[in-house]
């Protein structure tokens, strides 16, 4: 069997009726991973296959006995390699953490396990989640299952590509400026950036703490909703996790959009958006109208500052968060005769170029003489954007538009032009700046056969509306996408 042959619901029903076994699922995942290793490079580390089969068998036996099982019982899940998994290593795709084995599991991983999910391995990513193409990985780039000459997006590129290629049923990623949604869009899968605080960040290696959120990836909207419900909720180990009940997301998927008010920001369908992408998104919006939603245009002028505000603040936070990598407590240590040499050379040799670039930008923006000009201005911009975007939710229930201005671009195309790479995050950073929830859903393919993602942004705490709109888009566009089978690959 191939995991891409089934929707999430079919897999769950197949397990319940015992037409499918967890051993089938884990076996199919391992086989797909094995056959794609050289082409897709999606995983940094796979769990021991014998142990995985053993776990699957235990779930199958428990089901045969009639035990009460969790909602993810026996389902293989891939986990981004910046989310702590004890015993499986957690590298952040960096030389700095090449041999790091975390002393505990992230809360999301613990909850995944408690629901019966089987962590199949750790996925490739941009180093420390800094990147939009997965090309900034110490382990080499992951590739897009739709076209191996193209990037899978980033930074959760390995997680998105793994789900698209049937190497896992579900995956965890992290989204600081679009790092779940953009790769989901590029790989034709569903990716969620929940409300800030919805999922505990305990065990998520910090990049920019006021933006970072763990988010689910799945082939379809229902799979993402189930995974979100499993891992969300208050956690005493994360003071920023929301102390409120997790709303029902799964039931919202089939609710429809009749009576919902949707807005499309003017610049989201402006001249910077490729015509192929614009056409697919416009068609999806038309279908939402046909299904009973009303659609209006939104001005949102402050979004012109979104990329600048995001990169200045995120990199400032990163420069502070990454100060902990000093070659002393854990991580890479360079040989040096004195302590300053240990600090400077461990960081100089342990971090890749993009991480150094971000640390430099953040340090510069916070340094004496420049702090007000850059960091304080960016905070001001964040406040304006937050006020304007959340104010829009008085008028509309959701905001729709493309995930990215283009489809997946070619490997090497933007890697030497950081500004071009940063600017492609224009549509995803607003949700992170404001704490709002957002989802990326496939809405068809271009004439060139590449998937296009549409984004739905909703007010904080309003994930059910987001899932309702996403479910409608998925049904109207013909259901989950499957990448073409690639010959000997």
């Amino acid at each position, binding site marked *: 069997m191939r995991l891409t042959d089934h929707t999430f619901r079919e897999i769950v029903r197949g397990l319940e009726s015992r037409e499918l076994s967890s051993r089938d699922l884990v076996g199919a995942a391992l086989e797909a991973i094995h056959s794609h290793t050289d082409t897709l490079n999606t995983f940094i580390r796979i769990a021991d296959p014998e142990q995985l089969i053993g776990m699957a068998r235990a779930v199958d036996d428990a089901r045969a006995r009639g035990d009460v099982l969790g909602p993810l019982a026996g389902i293989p899940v891939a986990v981004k390699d910046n989310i702590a998994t004890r015993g499986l290593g957690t590298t952040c795709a960096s030389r700095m953490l090449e041999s790091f084995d975390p002393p505990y599991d992230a809360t999301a991983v613990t909850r995944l396990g408690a629901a019966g999910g089987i962590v199949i391995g750790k996925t490739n990513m941009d180093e420390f989640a800094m990147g939009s193409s997965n090309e900034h990985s110490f382990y080499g780039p992951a590739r897009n299952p739709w076209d191996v000459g193209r990037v899978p997006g980033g930074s959760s590129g390995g997680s998105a590509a793994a789900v698209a290629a049937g190497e896992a049923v579900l995956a965890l990623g992290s989204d600081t400026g679009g790092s779940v949604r953009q790769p989901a869009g590029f790989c034709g899968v569903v990716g969620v950036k929940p409300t800030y605080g919805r999922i505990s960040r305990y065990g998520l290696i910090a990049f920019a703490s006021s933006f970072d959120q763990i988010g689910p990836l799945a082939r379809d909207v229902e799979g993402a909703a189930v995974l979100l419900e499993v891992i969300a909720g208050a956690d005493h180990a994360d003071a920023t996790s*929301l102390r*409120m009940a997790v709303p029902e997301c799964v039931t919202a998927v089939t609710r429809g959009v009749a009576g919902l008010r949707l807005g499309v920001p003017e610049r989201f369908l402006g001249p910077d958006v490729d015509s192929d992408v614009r056409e697919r998104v416009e068609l999806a919006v038309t279908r939402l109208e046909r299904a009973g939603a009303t659609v209006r245009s939104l001005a949102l002028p402050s979004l012109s500052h979104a990329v600048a505000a995001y990169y200045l603040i995120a990199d400032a936070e990163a420069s502070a968060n990454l100060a902990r990598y000093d070659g002393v407590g854990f991580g890479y240590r360079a040989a040096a005769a004195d302590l300053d040499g240990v600090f400077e050379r461990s960081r100089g040799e342990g971090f890749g170029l993009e991480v150094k670039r971000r640390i430099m930008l953040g340090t510069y923006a916070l340094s004496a003489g420049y702090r007000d000009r850059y960091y304080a201005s960016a905070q001001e911009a964040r406040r304006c954007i937050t006020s304007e975007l959340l104010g829009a939710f008085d008028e509309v229930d959701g905001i729709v538009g493309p995930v990215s201005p283009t489809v997946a671009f070619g490997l090497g195309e933007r890697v030497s032009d950081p500004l071009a790479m940063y600017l492609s995050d224009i549509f995803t950073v607003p949700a992170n700046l404001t704490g709002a929830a957002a989802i990326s859903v496939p809405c068809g393919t271009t004439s060139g056969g590449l998937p296009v993602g549409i984004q739905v942004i909703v007010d904080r705490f309003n994930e059910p509306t987001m899932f309702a709109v996403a479910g409608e888009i998925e049904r109207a566009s013909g259901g989950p996408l499957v990448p073409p089978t690639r010959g000997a690959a």
Partner: protein
Amino acid sequence: MAVSIDEARRAARLARLALDDGELEMLAADLSAVLGHFESVAELTSAGAEGRCVTTPELFASGSDRRSDSVPGPRHDVVVRQDAVGVMLTAEEALRNAPESEDGQFSVPGFLPDEP
């Protein structure tokens, strides 16, 4: 906004990053390009804005309360956990990932001058 090599060197020193001359030159150029593009944001504070941060309670405040500083309403307070004894990392576990350790402690090159 052009960032000179000397300014880049100063930032690298602040960030404790050993960079070679080629990296410094490239990163100075990258920072110049990126910050040049971000100048429009810098103009926000020069135009008299206060540059105040979004605070954590603001990030968590719900509904229309969030949108105006003057409207009072329910706020999501930052919660501090109970100060209770719990199971923490043992010294052994904490040292397990250390590049070098000695006698149950992290080990680094000496940084105090020898006693006279």
